[in-house]
């Protein structure tokens, strides 16, 4: 959600201490300044005292997690996983600080970065948000492996690449091709087939701008990747090298050539949901969408049952995982790692699949048969990795320069 407001962070700031009002205006102004100074001092005191009590004893089992996303993520944390975790591990307490649609993501990331630089308690022990990736590449998160998070032994190690082994993948989703089955009788099966369909049906395909959501981003990435050699692709997925980015040019040229054939002769809606809305309203007939958004759309009836989905091959669209990060500067590493590991247990994975329509990160064979059947025909074990955080930022920028309105 790109629209950010400051209200949230302002609302969270401590209320100024009320001082007796002086009768003379000059004094009251001075009193106000003092009050401001006192509040700042008081909040500084409280933050330092909380960090000093946080180590050792029962408090070591009190975790605070920063979670952002939609209400389904909030429900997953607050109603499902955290109660189960607290029940299975007596004495542990998890406080979830939830930011709807990630409005506080940027400020939180800056706060964590500042806390790490100054060596202070960041106030959080874990984070699950779209900026977890940025925190991982900025070196703010603890390295994880099957040694400290045993559950990772069942998880595809390729999923750890984009986060430099610094965050735990705990649910997956991939981009699939959704289509209006009432109009499209034979949906494309391959990437080339998709492109010829778009050209044969001008205005009936849309993807959102990559900066505004991963489903459009995946279509762009898939196109760009077709022109890359394996080493370059690996660098883009695991690391960052701006000097290789000129290799994207042929792909961008192809995308630019598609401008006249996509929805509205070059309209790229803002956000994954905007594309699903166009599909639901019958404005378009084919679009790349996130698998979990598609599945929950069908569940909530925001998409009618005439909308189906398929996976293309050669290459497939990218997919990826959502990550749970443990802050390096948190003093409760053991407890935080325990919670992260809990997410990888079969019961929790099952709940995640049911609640979010997400893919499990552990093999489907470990889940109940009914759950595994939901992914009939979709290969959930093999998610084609996307670009690293920094590479995606550059891709978004270059796409904006080279594709729309040209």
């Amino acid at each position: 959600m790109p629209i950010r407001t400051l209200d949230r962070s302002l609302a969270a700031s401590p209320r100024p201490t009320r001082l007796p009002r002086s009768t003379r205006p000059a004094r009251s102004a001075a009193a106000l300044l003092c009050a401001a100074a006192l509040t700042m001092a008081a909040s500084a005191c409280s933050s330092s005292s909380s960090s000093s009590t946080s180590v050792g004893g029962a408090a070591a089992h009190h975790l605070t997690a920063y979670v952002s996303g939609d209400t389904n993520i909030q429900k997953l944390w607050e109603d499902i996983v955290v109660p189960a975790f607290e029940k299975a591990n007596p004495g542990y307490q998890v406080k979830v600080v939830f930011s709807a649609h990630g409005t506080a993501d940027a400020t939180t990331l800056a706060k964590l970065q500042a806390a790490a630089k100054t060596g202070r308690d960041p106030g959080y022990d874990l984070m699950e948000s779209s900026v977890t990736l940025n925190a991982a590449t900025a070196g703010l998160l603890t390295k994880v492996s099957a040694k400290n998070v045993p559950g990772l032994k069942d998880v595809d190690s390729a999923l750890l690449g984009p986060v430099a082994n610094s965050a735990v993948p705990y649910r997956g989703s991939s981009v699939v091709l959704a289509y209006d089955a009432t109009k499209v009788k034979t949906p494309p099966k391959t990437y080339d087939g998709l492109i010829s369909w778009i050209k044969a049906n001008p205005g009936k395909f849309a993807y959102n701008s990559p900066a505004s959501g991963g489903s459009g981003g995946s279509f762009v990435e898939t196109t760009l990747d077709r022109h890359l050699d394996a080493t370059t692709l690996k660098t883009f997925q695991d690391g960052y090298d701006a000097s290789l980015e000129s290799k994207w040019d042929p792909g961008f040229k192809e995308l630019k050539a598609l401008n006249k054939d996509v929805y509205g002769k070059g309209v790229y809606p803002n956000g994954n949901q905007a594309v699903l809305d166009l599909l639901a309203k019958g404005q378009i007939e084919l679009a790349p969408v996130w698998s979990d958004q598609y599945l929950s759309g069908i569940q909530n009836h925001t998409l009618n049952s005439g909308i189906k989905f398929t996976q293309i091959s050669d290459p497939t669209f990218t997919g990826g995982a959502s990550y749970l990060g443990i802050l390096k500067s948190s003093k409760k590493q053991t407890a935080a790692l325990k919670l992260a590991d809990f997410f990888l247990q079969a019961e929790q994975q099952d709940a995640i699949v049911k609640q979010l329509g997400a893919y499990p990160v552990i093999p489907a064979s470990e889940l109940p048969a009914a759950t595994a059947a939901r992914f009939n025909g979709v290969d959930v074990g093999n998610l084609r990795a996307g670009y690293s955080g920094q590479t995606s930022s550059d891709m978004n920028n270059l796409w904006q320069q080279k594709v729309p309105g040209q």
Partner: protein
Amino acid sequence: MVLPPLLVVALFVGIPVVSGVLYTLGHFGGLNSVIASIGLHQHPADHWWGTLAAYREVLTSDTFLRSLTVTVEVTLASVVAVFALGLAVALYARMSGGRTARLVTALAVTPLFLPAVIGSYAILTFYAGDGALTTMAHALGWSSAPRLSYTTWGVIVGQVWTNLPFAVLVLTSGLAAVPDALIEAARDAGARPAQVVLRVLLPMTSVPAVITATFTTIAVLGSFTVPYLVGPTAPTMLGVQLANAFQSFNQPQQSLVTAVVVFALASVVGVAYVRSNVRETRRAASVTR
């Protein structure tokens, strides 16, 4: 007595502005160290005063120049439209003053009570390919009716929508301040309504007019919500461009450079506002003397 507010302004506005400008010049230490540790493609200072490399990169880029052009175009078109509509409504209310006039004024002010996000989304759906307007046009046999959603025209409609209430309020109160006696005197002397407007009402509302024009210009220049939701993917207005650079492209330095440009454009308009205010104060002083 003026010191505490000055201190507050210096603390919450002055310091961030100075630190932001220093960052665009490539000074990454102190307050800027956190943001500098995250950003991509940054240009560090190479002189004691900094470097203009970030400015050079942004100001010469194609995307920026297209954004700048479209921003200036949208601003001019919106200001002219807002001003003309606002003046028409305010004059109508002043001259006729009946129930219809009150209704029209109330209608023009309504968007003030609706958040811009909701307004923009409403505009987007209303003018969409399957929106009310194209559906009606289609029913009437015009199958190729234009779609305003995701176009720069749609952005202008949105800007008029969000900025009209302020213009109407300021111009209405400006016109209301003109004494009835003056209008009646002009009518007694045989002036037709058009002459009353041109010779009496308009000259006496020059300050509210300048306020309306300058404030609308500044509001449109720095707008984000309307162009982001209603506008095309490219070219975008500078407000969207700088938000994109900051959030999606992870280029905070380039984003701040764009912000400085918007600030510079707005301050040109700000100077016009301050000068007209000073002139008015002087005139008022000379009248009372």
